[in-house]
């Protein structure tokens, strides 16, 4: 293993969905497993990014070795690089929830032409795609973009502020943890859950890298997988400690008990290593033309080493 890189960089996006990575970072799990596998003195640089796009650039320019972000980004990169970027392992599959302050809007059927739904990014974010998938289910493939005119782009904090402001024209928000629970706490109600649209969990945090890196550094890849498994174990065993790791990494000053309560929400403990719902996602992306190639199976866009994950 003499040529393997010992100084690796991984991206980090602060947030509860990425809890496993925060545990891996604070407990130095990757370092530990690499050492166990015979690669000593590995140092892992965790670099914080504000969003997926910048992480993509960082990976493509070779400035980071492994990124940790959503499924959409993986599929896109896999497609555009013609298979030169593939997934390693996933770490979370929590639901995202659309909430509303408007009592008239009980389900997606009640959305009228003038109702506004806040999503993180119009057209491309997971939330926007989910709305399209729902539209497909409701109105058929000819009307996939039914809800697109309703969407407006607002960051989660801004959307939350919008919901809090009774006079604001945006009354609904396709949110994400932890904002969705804070919003529900503040008196807004659930409109739709990603579980209902996908028919199961949808993978969120995914580690992925270039095939070139994976081929040259099998030990690191292995260590990342093992570390993820261990991190998820630790979260399940002791959520409080994991949340402390999150607080340490993100600087979040929220009370630990509140965070524990959030993890206690339905499906919030869906920390799992097998890709969930990704093929459904890919099918939709291919349908709307975002993906040029339709993967035959989820294993197309995961590393061969990861074929044992039993994903879908």
């Amino acid at each position, binding site marked *: 293993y003499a040529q393997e890189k010992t100084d690796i960089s991984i991206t980090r996006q602060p947030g509860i969905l990425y809890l496993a990575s925060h545990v891996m970072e604070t407990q130095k799990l990757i370092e530990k497993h690499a050492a166990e596998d015979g690669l000593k003195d590995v140092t892992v640089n965790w670099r914080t990014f504000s969003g997926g796009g910048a992480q993509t*650039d960082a990976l493509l320019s070779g400035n980071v070795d492994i990124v940790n972000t959503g499924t959409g980004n993986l599929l896109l990169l896999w497609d555009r690089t013609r298979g030169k970027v593939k997934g390693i392992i996933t770490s979370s599959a929590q639901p995202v929830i659309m909430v509303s302050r408007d009592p008239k809007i009980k389900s997606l059927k009640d959305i009228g032409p003038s109702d*506004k739904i806040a999503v993180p990014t119009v057209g491309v974010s997971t939330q926007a795609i989910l709305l399209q998938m729902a539209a497909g289910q409701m109105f058929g493939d000819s009307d996939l973009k039914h809800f697109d*005119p309703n*969407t407006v782009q607002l960051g989660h904090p*801004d959307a939350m502020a*919008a919901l809090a402001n009774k006079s*604001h024209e945006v009354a609904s928000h396709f949110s994400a943890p932890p904002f969705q629970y804070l919003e529900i706490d503040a008196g807004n109600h659930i409109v739709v859950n990603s579980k209902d649209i996908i028919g199961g969990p949808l993978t969120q945090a995914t580690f992925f890298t270039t095939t070139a890196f994976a081929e040259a550094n099998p030990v690191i890849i292995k260590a990342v997988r093992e570390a993820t498994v261990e991190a998820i174990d630790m979260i399940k065993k002791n959520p409080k400690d994991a949340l402390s790791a999150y607080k340490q990494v993100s600087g979040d000053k929220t009370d630990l008990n509140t965070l524990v309560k959030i993890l206690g929400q339905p499906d919030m403990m869906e920390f799992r290593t097998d890709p969930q719902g990704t093929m459904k996602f890919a099918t939709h992306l291919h349908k709307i033309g975002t993906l040029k190639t339709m993967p035959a199976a989820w294993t197309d866009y995961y590393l061969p080493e990861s074929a044992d994950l039993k994903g879908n």
Partner: protein
Amino acid sequence: MTSPQIILAADVTTNRQHANVAEVEQRLGSLELILGISAVRKTVLIIVLAVIWQVYASYLDNPLLFPTLSDTLTTLYDRFVDGTLPSRIWTTLQVLITGYVAGTVLAAILTILAINTRIGTDFLETMTAMFNPLPAISLLPLALIWFGLGASSLVFVLIHSVLWAVALNTHAGFLGVSRTLRMVGGNYGLTGLSYVMRILVPAAFPSILTGLKIGWAFAWRTLIAAELVFGVSSGQGGLGWFIFENRNLLDIPAVFAGLLTVIIIGLIVENLVFQTIERHTIQKWGMKE
């Protein structure tokens, strides 16, 4: 000869001289002549930059990060023909020009107040120092409260980016107008607005024009960045959105086609609008070499 002598000059035959002149003026070679035209030199420069782009991008061979010029141009052409880019440009230009004009007008009002009253000066100086460094996103909450989503918030942010640069340059230009010219203006009984418009503005025109150029550039920058922050109700996004969307889709040649569009519009505005203004004002007036 012990006294002064006046020696008269013979009348000069000017005809010979003129022949001579024509000769002198024709001596420039054609290459020199062609290179003497600024437009030609600029075109050459742009071509050189284009070649560098193409060669460097081919060498890098990382089309997802930095596509070649030819890919970019192909995409640019496609997106133009299919009508995407023209409509995006149109959306952007509408907002841009609204914001730019509004920002410039506000800058004019602020500087007029500043030059006429002491409190106006303090106000302008303080506001500029305070707000100029603030990034556009910081205005987001207020913009949302006041204008909601949509173009008016964008215009608000644009004003923020244009206003201070134009106001700073204009104000500095006003303060630098020569004492004599200001006295001449006072002498004509001009005060307040007419003093500013008829004396200070033309006299400070070089500075004002610089401010307008910088303001224009920053309006572009801000708009493109702000379209991402403020989002769009789908389907009616502008160039900034076009760039962002294609970045998200990792359609990098389209991203660069969008950026190239910005560059081309920048070149057109600079060379057609600003240079024309310059030629008909400060160059004609001998205020600039």
